[in-house]
């Protein structure tokens, strides 16, 4: 919303800087970082109280603080730290338009079931959390409303029906049927929600990979919203989506702040509050900038984690049916546990997966030029 102040540059010259997406992106990242650092310790203390009761003191910590934390004693719901940081930073720095509204709406709508799931498990000690139908209902509702708004609003309705693929210079389907759009958006939102949920199994893994994905998506959103760059790169030009680069920058800043507390040994986990919502956010952003299949490349680590579970379960069931004895493809799924079982320390798995995520991100960026 600070963008509106650029209209008063005749009163105070430097306000014209707020017109530029790049300036506001940096502002959003820094603001989200600060908000995360300010609210982080307070919320972690609150989450600890919710988990263990008021006045809980972990006797093992002493002067060395988090060194002695273990996963059983680590509070969850840290996704709320990321949500508050992203939300207020994005609202402050991004210009309100249909794209940013839909992105924040989907993010909010998926934070709610995630938070409720964590709350039931932590506070009410209900190990099942929310029922499956509630989760599916929320995800479906969020997708339907998001798509409804995108199809209704004049700024988005014309372009949202196009389907673009990486490496191609034109839409493969210029006008998709709304049912196909719904299925695609649903698959992407729910698919990446679950993928990040599965990835969130080691300290700093999910949030670290989300930073690289958000960085690349931010660059792509800026390119998609800039006519000259989109024309030069032969990618889809979608007016107004440049503001999603500000949302992505807010996400980067928030994730950086969260990583400060989530790095090994973690003081807080993001829980379903974070993982479900982050997956939905990156899924819907990729969809809106016409790069849904590029997200499969950029978010390669998340896809790898999801597929490792799918293949592990599928292979086990298939071999059991055929031979009577189920066999495993991996030592354990998701795949980060496979490497732990092979003897890799947790931090090595996390850092190597971050390297992989960067590699996938660069590969995704390369698709902008290899067309």
């Amino acid at each position: 919303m600070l963008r509106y102040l650029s209209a008063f540059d005749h009163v105070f010259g430097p306000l014209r800087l707020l017109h530029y997406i790049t300036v506001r992106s940096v502002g959003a990242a820094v603001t989200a970082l600060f908000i995360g650092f300010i609210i982080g310790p307070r919320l972690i203390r609150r989450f600890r109280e919710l988990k263990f009761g008021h006045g809980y003191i972990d006797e093992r910590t002493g002067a060395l603080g988090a060194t002695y934390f273990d996963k059983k004693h680590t509070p969850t719901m840290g996704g709320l730290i990321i949500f508050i940081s992203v939300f207020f930073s994005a609202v402050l720095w991004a210009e309100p338009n249909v794209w940013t509204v839909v992105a924040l709406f989907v993010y909010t709508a998926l934070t709610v079931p995630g938070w409720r799931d964590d709350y039931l498990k932590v506070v009410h000690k209900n190990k099942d959390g929310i029922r499956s139908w509630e989760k599916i209902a929320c995800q479906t509702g969020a997708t339907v409303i998001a798509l409804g708004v995108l199809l209704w609003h004049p700024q988005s309705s014309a372009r949202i029906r196009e389907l673009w693929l990486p490496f191609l210079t034109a839409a493969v389907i210029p006008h998709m049927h709304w049912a196909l759009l719904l299925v695609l958006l649903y698959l992407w939102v729910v698919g990446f929600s679950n993928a990040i949920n599965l990835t969130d199994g080691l300290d700093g893994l999910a949030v670290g990979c989300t930073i690289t994905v958000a960085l690349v998506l931010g660059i792509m959103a800026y390119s998609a919203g800039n006519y000259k760059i989109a024309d030069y790169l032969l990618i889809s030009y979608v007016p107004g989506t440049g503001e999603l680069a500000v949302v992505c920058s807010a996400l980067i800043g928030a994730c950086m702040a969260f990583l400060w507390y989530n790095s090994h040994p973690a003081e807080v986990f993001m829980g379903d509050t974070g993982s479900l919502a982050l997956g939905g956010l990156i899924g819907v952003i990729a969809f809106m900038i016409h790069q849904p299949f590029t997200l499969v490349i950029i978010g390669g680590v998340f896809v790898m984690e999801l597929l490792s579970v799918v293949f592990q379960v599928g292979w086990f069931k298939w071999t059991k049916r055929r031979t009577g004895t189920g066999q495993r493809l991996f030592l354990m799924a998701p795949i980060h546990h496979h490497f732990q079982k092979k003897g890799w320390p947790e931090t090595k798995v996390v850092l190597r997966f971050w390297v992989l995520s960067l590699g996938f991100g660069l590969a995704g960026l390369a698709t902008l030029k290899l067309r």
Partner: protein
Amino acid sequence: MSAMIKAITKQLDASLPFSRTTMLAVALWAAVFTVFIVLGLSR
């Protein structure tokens, strides 16, 4: 009047599942988001 307000506030504090700070934070968030949505979707 102030005694009535105090009594209502005390009853609300006892019946609501969240603290006043949480409720205020959620109300602030809802107000900000509403303004953002209205500005963003206005044609």
